[in-house]
């Protein structure tokens, strides 16, 4: 259980995290979603006691991180896989961490096996690939068999096999009853792993809600229809409350109508349909709609990154509960 109340971090005039209040519950994967520079890493650093909040506080299992006696046995974290002394072997790196938290030596071998680094355990980590480094970081996070796990952009630099592995691992850890908090700016990745979402933009918590609710509240489904008589169909479907978008490949996307209605209209007029499917909105759409204003760095649109603050309360049920 991670709980943040009014968590704030300012660097001079810049506010990296602005009054963040949220909680991360055990037993499920909670995604921490936000554009680059939104404050995800800063928030995680404050959870781990690395950065001191300017205001507010955050606790893990009811206690501030810096007061934990054996933190690795309560919280495992992977912030940046490069945070190791490259001159030390993978085994010795983990051994140093294990000793500091009274974790038995055999656990080092166990986690090395778990992440598949046994064969390079005696190699200095400076020669590791990005993916191997990431695995070493995950081994360190799992070392103390902690009840709370945090990963900052864990799939960065991993190959498809590694991505699948970490996805499975995170779900398994959550199923075992642990608190799993994962940040990412990759929507597709989040959609696959997270059941709950904490969305952050420009340092503010925009939403703290279930994945399905989040998408439902911030984007709508539509119907994809393909017909050799698309132009005629489009004419028949047009009407108030409906929006039609032709796809470049000839398909038609219809907003504001159910698949059944479209099928009936086509049948009534003897039009042939080659495809008729309801398309669930993607997390990406929902996210874009919510954070459109909150992205810190807009690409190539002068003036677009104006001071527009995220509209308070925009689809943010549960934030601050």
């Amino acid at each position: 259980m991670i709980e943040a109340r009014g968590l704030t971090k300012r660097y001079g005039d810049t506010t990296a995290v602005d009054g963040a209040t949220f909680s991360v519950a055990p037993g499920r994967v909670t995604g921490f979603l936000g554009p680059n520079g939104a404050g995800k890493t800063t928030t995680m650093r404050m959870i781990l006691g690395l950065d001191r909040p300017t205001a507010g506080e955050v606790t893990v299992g009811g206690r501030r991180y810096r007061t934990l006696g054996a933190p690795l046995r309560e919280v495992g974290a992977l912030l940046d896989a490069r945070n190791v002394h490259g001159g030390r072997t993978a085994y010795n790196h983990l051994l140093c961490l294990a000793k500091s938290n009274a974790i038995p030596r055999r656990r080092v071998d166990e986690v090395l096996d778990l992440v598949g680094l046994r064969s390079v355990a005696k190699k200095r980590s400076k020669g590791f690939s990005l993916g191997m480094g990431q695995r070493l970081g995950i081994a360190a996070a799992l070392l103390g068999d902690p009840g709370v796990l945090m990963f900052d952009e864990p799939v960065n630099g991993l190959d498809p096999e590694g991505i699948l592995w970490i996805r499975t691992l995170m779900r398994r850890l959550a199923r075992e009853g642990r608190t799993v908090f994962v940040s990412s700016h990759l929507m597709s990745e989040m959609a696959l792993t997270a059941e709950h979402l904490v969305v952050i933009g420009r340092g503010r918590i925009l939403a703290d809600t279930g994945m399905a609710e989040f998408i439902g509240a911030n984007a709508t489904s539509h119907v994809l229809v393909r017909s050799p008589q698309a132009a005629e169909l489009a004419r028949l479907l047009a009407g108030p409350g409906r929006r039609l978008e032709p796809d470049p490949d000839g398909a038609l996307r219809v907003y504001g109508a159910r698949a059944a209605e479209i099928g009936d209209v086509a049948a009534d007029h003897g039009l042939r349909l080659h495809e008729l499917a309801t398309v669930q909105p993607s997390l990406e759409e929902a996210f874009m709609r919510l954070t459109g204003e909150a992205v810190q760095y807009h690409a190539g649109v002068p003036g677009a990154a104006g001071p527009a603050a995220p509209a308070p309360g925009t689809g943010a049920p549960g934030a601050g509960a």
Partner: protein
Amino acid sequence: MSAPAATGPRRDAGRVRFGHVLSSEWTKIATVRSTFWTLLAGAVVLVGFSALWALAFTASFDQMSARDRATFTPMLPTQVAYYFGLVIFGALGVLVITAEHGTGMIKTALTAVPRRAAYLAAKTVVLGAVVLVFGIVVTFASFYAAQGILASKHLDGNIGDPGVLRAIVGGGIYLALVAILALGIGTLLRHTAGSIVLLFVVLFVLGIAGGFLPSSWGDTVNKFLPSNAGGAILDPVHKSGSLAPWTGLGVFAVYTAVVLAAAVILFERRDA
């Protein structure tokens, strides 16, 4: 939103004590090659320069002034070697912390040991113990290396001579304090090159600059400059113009303590 209290599986293990952090720091210092190379360099410089200066003294003793001959002690080659060796042992102290800042390891390490004062204390104890033991051994070696050469002109001394044993053991303590001072500087600056340069200025340049001060008050200031105060322990006989051996080392220990205290305070406050 209320959720059930954290129920993650917990490993029942013993309480973490300072000894665990010490043991971790010991593993850290023993598992990087830079420790080995720095200590080896320190040994080579102390023993090698001690032998070289013994050769130089043996060759030029007859041409030395009566005053210089009168103040010559068999410890002198080792004392000169210390000028060059100090910074190397200091470099080890600097690296113990700045290598962690440089690599980012400090973030991982502080997640494991968030009690920062305890973290720095463990580093200090381990570094101090390693350099103390190694320093005493190497100082013995450098003393004997010099005596072998000095013997050709019957300038050699004995471990039993007044003040010699104190100078050797005290020298080891001095080296340990230098390493700890360096650890403090490294913690404050968080940067390897910058810390070694500052250490070099404190131990070397200050001592030279002090020599240019007007003697009316400069003599007093000079005695208290870090390298002069600390170096007093290496003299078997108390020389005029310097502090008494243990007083000098004590003054150096105070400097070290002040820097270390500042380091702890800043280390506690700063974001890692």
